[in-house]
């Protein structure tokens, strides 16, 4: 009995399989046939067109075969997001002599990266090395280190270093272990502890935006790390990062190290000359992180340190939108 049952089932399966195979082959055959018939009807025009191939010979083609190709206007902007813009190396110079804590950089950055948390990506620190030394204002961005500690410790390659110097984050890959935050000596990284809530607080529709490493915060994802991205979305449009353009005092210079030029929007200067003339330095050089951000010391200051105290808030860096 049992054996019989098994046999009949096997037979059924066998037949079914054969039937299926025949149907499949038949289907393919029919579709091929119809496509051939269709082709015949459409290629009945006898207009010929002369075209030149890439190696310079003239050929004749039936005009019905010619299709218009959409011209690629984005041609030189196409590159691998993980490799970066070819032949570029972005740097920033921050002139501490000019900074008076106007905080326009911070609010512009917060606005354009849709920051909803309590910790801004850009900070302006109130610094004083020792009791006898002069206090000064120090804006910080991500240092985009050439030897980034955060990238070294990331277990999944979610944060990565590009050839154009940028250190970016793939928020769709980040597992939220926060090791990069522990590794970064500049405390530049910010975590989305809860739902970023950009839709609610900023009244934004984020549904159409897929996160891109090139525009941090657009949108932010819960349980992943964010930080200053050096605004590659601006650079692509030949514009300067938001903090650079927002600064009323021309503190930030942005540019390309290979071109040896940086600009703050008003003046464009030689990077090497600027660093030499004003004794540029980098933060925590001794750690060997090789930052891409240079600082010019706060000497011959054009502004009073005290002027900045008016805007200084020890416990706030992201202004909350007024409840309406």
């Amino acid at each position, binding site marked *: 009995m049992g054996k019989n049952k098994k046999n009949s089932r096997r037979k059924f399966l066998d037949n079914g399989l054969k039937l299926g195979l025949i149907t499949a082959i038949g289907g393919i055959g029919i579709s091929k046939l119809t496509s051939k018939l269709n082709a015949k009807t459409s290629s009945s025009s006898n207009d010929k067109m002369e075209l030149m191939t890439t190696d310079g010979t003239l050929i004749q083609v039936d005009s019905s075969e010619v299709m218009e190709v959409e011209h690629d206007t984005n041609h030189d902007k196409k590159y691998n997001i993980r490799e970066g813009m070819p032949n570029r190396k972005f740097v920033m110079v921050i002139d501490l002599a000019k900074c008076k804590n106007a905080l326009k950089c911070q609010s512009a950055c917060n606005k354009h990266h849709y920051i909803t948390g*309590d*910790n801004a990506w850009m900070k*302006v620190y109130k610094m004083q090395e020792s009791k006898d030394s002069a206090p000064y204002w120090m804006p910080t961005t991500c240092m985009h280190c050439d030897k980034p*500690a955060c990238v070294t410790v990331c277990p*999944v390659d979610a944060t990565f270093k590009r050839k154009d110097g940028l250190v970016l984050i793939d928020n769709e890959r980040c597992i939220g272990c926060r090791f990069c935050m522990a590794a970064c000596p*500049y405390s530049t990284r910010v975590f989305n*502890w809860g739902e970023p809530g950009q839709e609610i607080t900023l009244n934004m529709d984020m549904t159409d935006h897929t996160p891109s490493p090139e525009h941090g915060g657009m949108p932010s994802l*819960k349980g992943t790390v964010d930080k200053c991205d050096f605004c590659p979305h601006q650079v692509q449009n030949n514009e300067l990062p938001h903090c650079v353009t927002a600064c009323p005092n021309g503190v930030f210079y942005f540019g390309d190290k290979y071109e040896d030029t940086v600009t703050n929007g008003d003046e464009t200067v030689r990077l090497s000359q600027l660093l030499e003339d004003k004794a540029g330095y980098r933060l925590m050089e001794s750690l060997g992180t090789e930052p891409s951000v240079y600082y010019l010391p706060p000497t011959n200051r054009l502004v009073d340190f005290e002027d900045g105290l008016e805007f200084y808030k020890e416990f*706030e860096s992201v202004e909350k939108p007024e409840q309406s």
Partner: protein
Amino acid sequence: MKNFKTLVKDLAPKKFGKFDIIWTCFLVLIIIIGIVAYIDQLIKGQEVTNMRDYALWGIYISNFVFFVATSFVGSVTVAILRLTNNEWRTPLVRIAEIISVAAIVMAGITIMIDMARPDRLLNLFIHARLQSPITWDVFIIPTYILISLLLLYFPLIPDFAILKKYFKKKDPKLSKWYGKLSLNWTGSIAQKAIQTKSIRIIAIMIIPVGLLLQTIDAWLFSTTYRIGWDSTNFAPYFISGALVAGIGALVSVIYVVRKHKKLEYYITDFHFDKLGKLLVLACLTYLYFNINEYLIPAFTSKKGESIHLDTLFTGAYAPLFWSVTIIGLIFPIIILLFKKGRKPLPMFIVGLVVVVGSWWKRFVIVTPTLLHPFLPIQGVPESWHHYFPSLHEWLITVATLAMALLIITLLVRYLPVIPIQRTADELGLSENKIKNTES
């Protein structure tokens, strides 16, 4: 003098009593509460914790480090005492192996609780990068789990065969399970040779793997620039700390098991005395590395270091730091140096204190360092300058501890906590002998 029959009767697992059932239910209840809290954390995100951008790791991580440290007890007591031919280990090894398995399994679970995106766990394999210390952890923890399980299982095989026979009439279902687990053990010379060799290989293997596990755990911290973590001393510091935590846990569990299962005949004052000496050795070694860790930076007192050390020595974390150091380390050393201090009851109290001290010690290692970054903490809410775990964090963490205790409880329920076969061999008893005297 015991004979084989009474020996098996003494050491065979016994059914849960009333107290055991209450205890187990209590643990299960805590675990359920923890799971509910964790689900809430999954839904809302880690904003339910008190971790923020500065205190970016909290008790999930220090609890993980504690579990990893405790799991070291398996390598030490079993492997090292075995290789050094310390016969007194026999009645203690099984419990050590059980603690080891429970702790390392829980370590693996705890580290996942800290991950903000556990849904992307597979990224650790798909996009694994070898240079990240977390990837090293991903390799070493499963390896250690596997070796610990084998080290627990292999010596159990002859005992399973004995239990299969013992439970044949009393509990056929249980007997069947023991039978399956015993892998048709007959005790033949060939089987014994394979078993001895296998155990020897595992015992040798677990030492480097155990050392690596503790080392990688230390490297999670010392591969960063952070003041208080950036220390070449960290790996041996963690290894010696793991010895303390592990042996402390072993002493505590052994005392409870011995009392509860009335094993005073097998686990005697002599064993506690030996364990006490081992624990004091561990504590002294740990003290030595502590002195290295805190005194040298205090001597050179670089600016960052002295700010960090000030908060530990006299600042916000001073009460915790000194409790952990004096009550959790120096008092145990003093007590254990006296013979009277190595009696079971004082040992039990010392063991508990050492375990609690070890747990908080990890908190002192993880948290204060994060609150002293290189650049000042500015532009964030005042509450971000401090860290104390939230209710969610406590509920989840206590649940992980309860889960470890539940694993230990269940293993103690179903496994012979003292190796039967080996004890019989050492006492010169065997089944055949009984038959001989009977016939």
